[in-house]
């Protein structure tokens, strides 16, 4: 097992549409500002490169190919599941976390279950933890994703 945080939200659309919103519209719902984006002083565009082997990136300058690579996409199953690696800007070699999102149909739409795991690869004094103990740190990560998913749901008005 590994340290993880899971958050969930229900969107009033079919799983295929929820998956499309999550991926294609990522720059629309991904919150802006240094708390959410990867290079605080640059404004970029969040983008999923579709398909396994693609990447989640924040693009700063398309022409120059300047971007931040969050991680590789490991599973790409539209309407069902999306898994990608996640490396923060201050992660070192071997420090990698993973985001696993499942889209489950239910009577009121789609339940999105997002698990962010692999936090044991970040040592207790890692700067990403901001000096918080494991529980407080993971809870704050949960709050971070809750804000993001709430913004995703807000796309639907």
């Amino acid at each position, binding site marked *: *097992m590994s340290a*993880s*945080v899971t*958050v969930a939200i229900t969107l009033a659309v079919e799983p295929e549409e929820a998956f499309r919103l999550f991926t294609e519209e990522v720059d629309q719902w991904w919150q802006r500002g240094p708390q959410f984006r990867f290079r605080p002083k640059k404004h970029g565009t969040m983008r999923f490169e579709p398909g396994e082997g693609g990447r989640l990136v924040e693009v700063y300058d398309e022409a120059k190919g300047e971007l931040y690579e969050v991680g590789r996409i490991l599973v790409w199953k539209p309407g069902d599941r999306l898994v990608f690696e996640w490396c923060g800007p201050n992660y070192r070699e071997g420090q990698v976390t993973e985001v696993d999102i499942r889209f489950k149909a239910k009577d009121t739409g789609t339940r999105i279950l997002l698990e962010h795991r692999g936090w044991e690869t970040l040592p207790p004094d890692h700067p990403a933890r901001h000096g918080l103990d494991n529980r407080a740190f993971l*809870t704050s990560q949960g709050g971070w994703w809750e804000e993001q998913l709430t913004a995703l749901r807000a796309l639907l008005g």
Partner: protein
Amino acid sequence: MAEKTGSAAAEVVPALFYDDPNAALDWLEQAFGFETCLRVTDDDGVIQHAELEHGNGRIMLGGSGWAEFPASPKTLGGRNTQCIHVQVKDVMAHYERAKAAGATIAAEPEDQFYGDKVYRAFDLEGHFWTFGQTMRVLSNADMEKASPGLKVEGKG
């Protein structure tokens, strides 16, 4: 997911202590129809904190061993100091689901003088719950008539 802060958010959020929070989370989803909206798991795979929703209500759950005062009813001879009440849309369906999932029924569904049908149950570690559905909306005077000796005040 309910907003944590905002007009639609539950402002009172009970938190329950379980010896086995992982088992409790699965059980509460299965038996009582809660939906997990936040789960924090440590390096050993043990849930440190979780939040579950039911309608616009929310509970938190966690372990029992992190300080002197938290305890599961399981280790207290089944005694409880409080009860969580949940208002549901179909109390009979809820009752059947809970029973099928192994809830210990403490009182069968029964019509109450105040117009609700209510049943009582213990969960997997002995926490005490009640579930009700409003079947008839009664005035305070009607309730007093239905239960002589009680004075009913306020807006129920």
